[in-house]
């Protein structure tokens, strides 16, 4: 690949040189400036060759295996497809040097044929690539002439590249939707959807699939208790009051310092919050609960995870509230003050009601962020699927279970792994809906004051 790029550079130089000669030789100016001719030749040299390289990388392993199988040494291979592919894989590893020692004696015999086939096909690939490079470069070079519109051609390629880049976003979205849907459908083939959505027992076992152990209600319960209740009880008052103080009371200089300081809370990595919740807040809350005589207290508690998550979300709520309070027309505030209301009465009875849609949008975004948050709950909320209202007890969430199901030692095909995709699908749908609703509310609210 480096070779192709190097040759493309050479192509660029020669193309440009030829175009330079054109400019000096004649009186009339060529259509495009020399470097565009250079780019044109370089693109012709590099693109077909790189495309061929990618294609070759995809098909050559198959060709190599075919060549090895036609070798006389391969006739001794067992007929069973599984063992056969295991031996072949091992021989390939030995031949390319990624594996030091063979496990299966039959693979040793195949190393030499493999090595030979690999060498043969890789040299064929290199030769073909070089041929394509030179052919492309030569073709581009012959096109360089006085009236040739190199710039237009090059710009068309640039536009194609830009468009392809912007398709990446769509591809990612579709990739998420399809991979989640595909694996989830396979899961729902084993466990009925109704059983999954409304079952109340969550205890996935490895081994046989028992649909009644995949009831996700306890996970939804835990997610809502932590993300939508406890975290919001912390984040909404603190975030809203912070926004009010910063926009209405704080001196401009103080505001300039305080606002970024509070934003730091959102920039602290979640693993740090999780560690903090698990090590400092959790044990302190457990001791407090024990002192108060509350049973079932655990150092992995819904409360510690929820509080810390709420603190993490304060900046999100406060900046959304900040935006919507500042967007309320000044005349409304001035009118209220002129009627003799104190600033706090103005805020509570005029500004907040007027800004409410924006604040609500911010809260919905915050909820969607909270239920998708993973590390804090993994480290601080525990793993047991309880349906309890006791906030001092250990409780689990959707994201915790995704991590737990995925980091075990089971195969990718097992029901437990597929269950993680089903949970991911639910999480994706819920956060997506929350975001769409929130953005729509905020947008409509903004329009109403413009």
């Amino acid at each position, binding site marked *: 690949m480096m070779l192709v790029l190097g040759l493309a550079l050479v192509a660029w130089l020669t193309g440009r040189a030829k175009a330079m000669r054109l400019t000096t030789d004649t009186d009339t100016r060529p259509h495009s400036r020399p470097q565009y001719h250079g780019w044109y030749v370089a693109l012709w040299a590099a693109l077909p060759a790189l495309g061929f390289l990618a294609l070759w990388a995809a098909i050559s392993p198959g060709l190599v295996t075919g060549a090895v199988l036609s070798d006389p040494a391969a006739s001794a291979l067992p007929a069973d497809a599984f063992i056969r592919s295991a031996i072949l894989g091992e021989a390939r590893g030995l031949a390319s040097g990624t594996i030091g020692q063979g496990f299966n004696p039959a693979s040793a015999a195949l190393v030499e044929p493999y090595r030979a086939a690999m060498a043969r096909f890789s040299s064929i690939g290199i030769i073909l690539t070089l041929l394509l490079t030179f052919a492309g470069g030569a073709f581009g070079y012959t096109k360089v002439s006085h009236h040739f519109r190199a710039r237009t051609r090059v710009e068309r390629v640039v536009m194609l590249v830009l468009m392809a880049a912007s398709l990446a976003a769509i591809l990612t979205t579709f990739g998420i939707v399809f991979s989640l849907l595909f694996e989830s459908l396979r899961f729902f083939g084993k466990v009925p959807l109704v059983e999954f959505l409304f079952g109340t027992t969550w205890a996935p076992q490895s081994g046989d699939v028992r649909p009644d152990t995949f009831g996700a209600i306890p996970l939804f319960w835990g997610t809502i208790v932590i993300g939508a209740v406890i975290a919001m009880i912390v984040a909404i008052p603190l975030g809203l009051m912070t926004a009010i103080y910063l926009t209405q009371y704080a001196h401009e200089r103080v505001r300039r310092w305080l606002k970024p300081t509070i934003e730091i809370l959102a920039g602290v990595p979640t693993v740090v919050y999780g560690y903090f919740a698990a090590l400092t807040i959790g044990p302190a809350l457990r001791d407090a609960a024990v002192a108060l005589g509350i049973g079932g207290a655990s150092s992995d508690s819904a409360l510690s995870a929820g509080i810390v998550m709420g603190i993490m979300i304060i900046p999100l709520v406060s900046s959304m509230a900040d935006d919507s309070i500042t967007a309320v027309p000044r005349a409304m505030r001035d009118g209220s003050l002129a009627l003799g209301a104190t600033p706090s009465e103005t805020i509570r009875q005029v500004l907040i009601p007027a800004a409410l849609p924006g604040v609500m949008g911010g809260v919905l*975004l915050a909820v969607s962020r909270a239920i998708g948050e993973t590390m804090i709950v993994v480290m601080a909320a525990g793993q047991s699927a309880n349906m309890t209202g006791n906030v001092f007890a250990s409780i689990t969430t959707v994201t915790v279970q995704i991590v737990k199901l995925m980091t075990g030692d089971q195969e990718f095909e097992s029901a437990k792994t597929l269950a993680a995709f089903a949970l991911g699908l639910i999480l994706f749908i819920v956060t997506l809906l929350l975001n769409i609703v929130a953005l729509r509310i905020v947008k409509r609210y903004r329009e109403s004051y413009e």
Partner: protein
Amino acid sequence: MNSPAPPTSKWAGDAMQARLRRRYAAERRFRWFGFGAVALSVGFLLFLLVNMAAAGLSGFSQTRIAVPVDFRGSGLSINLDRMTREQAQSTLAQQGLPDLLTLSATAAFGPEGEHYLGAAAGAVARDAILGDPSMLSRQVIIDLPAASAIDVAAKGAGDAVSEAAVARLDAQGKLSSGFDTLFLSGADATDPTLAGVWGALKGSLLTMLVTMLFAFPIGTFTAVYLEEYAPKNRLTDIIEVSINNLAAVPSIIFGLLALALFINMFGLCGGSPLVGGMTLALMTMPVIVIAARNAIKAVPPSIRDAALAVGASKVQVVFHHVLPLALPGILTGAIIGMARALGETAPLLLIGMRAFVGDAPAGLCDRATVLPMQIFLWSDEVDKGFVENTSAAIIVLLIVLLSMNAIAITLRNKFEQRW
């Protein structure tokens, strides 16, 4: 119109004054609530940082015990003129340097002395000998790193047995402490005194390199296309909607996608900086697109018009004029997006980066771990020595993040243009 005139308010009346006082009190209360909320938020931030700093700073220091070692008659000999450093190191190990150290510790501190020395003691002694080979012919006192239990006890959090040992050693003046270079140069290890962050830091750097290579060009190109060229049609709408949605998708979903796509479908190397970086690139790209679009939007149309007027093509306008002017803004957004990706753990858990990696990764396809993942792994360890390691790793992570953000802010302040 015939209604009677409203009763005139008695502004100076007692009832009115009392109401006013109530209202002013409510005003003051409200104001204090606001101040309290801000103070609470800032206070929590300070508490978090101070807490981490207090717990983590001791992770950068190492307790050392002065051990008299008698090399005479030990049979150790090296010849630096004829051996390379590596040969000398293995020769020393073969000739029984670790056993000699254990024996010396037992001789100096009694039978439990062999538990006092840490796993890194052999390496420190070896380096001391390589620095001064003449010590092999005499008795010397070497400061050797202490075992994890002693180290923790010396910092005030150990069990009773180790506390007693520390008190005894301290009374004899044998204890000292110094900067733990191994923490910054080592990789993960099963012994907390040996474990370091360099492996994770290098893993993070490689991962970020991959993320940058994928997310920055794709994000910038997308933003350029959407802002400058995209026709108003269905496809453009779909692109915009998916970018806005991707920016709000929980990070763990990207982990699921990467697992299904990169590892199971394409068969790329799991748990490596390559796959980790590509996963984080998917996450970072929307952030860069949004920042880049704002930066491009901020370039005034008069510049485009001027360039078009002197005959530039649309591609030339963007690549010669708009992009250079928007670049500081794009870079700022990119750095902030990268900082967020650097602190991200959840998607990497799913693609197999949750493994013990005892070496710094050498290439993009090696198994690796990243800083936040190292913090997560250490926080799960039972050994008390890992507590300070975890906090110290958090300090390293926060310092890296802070410097990235500082770069972004400086960049913005330096190059920001008001038109």
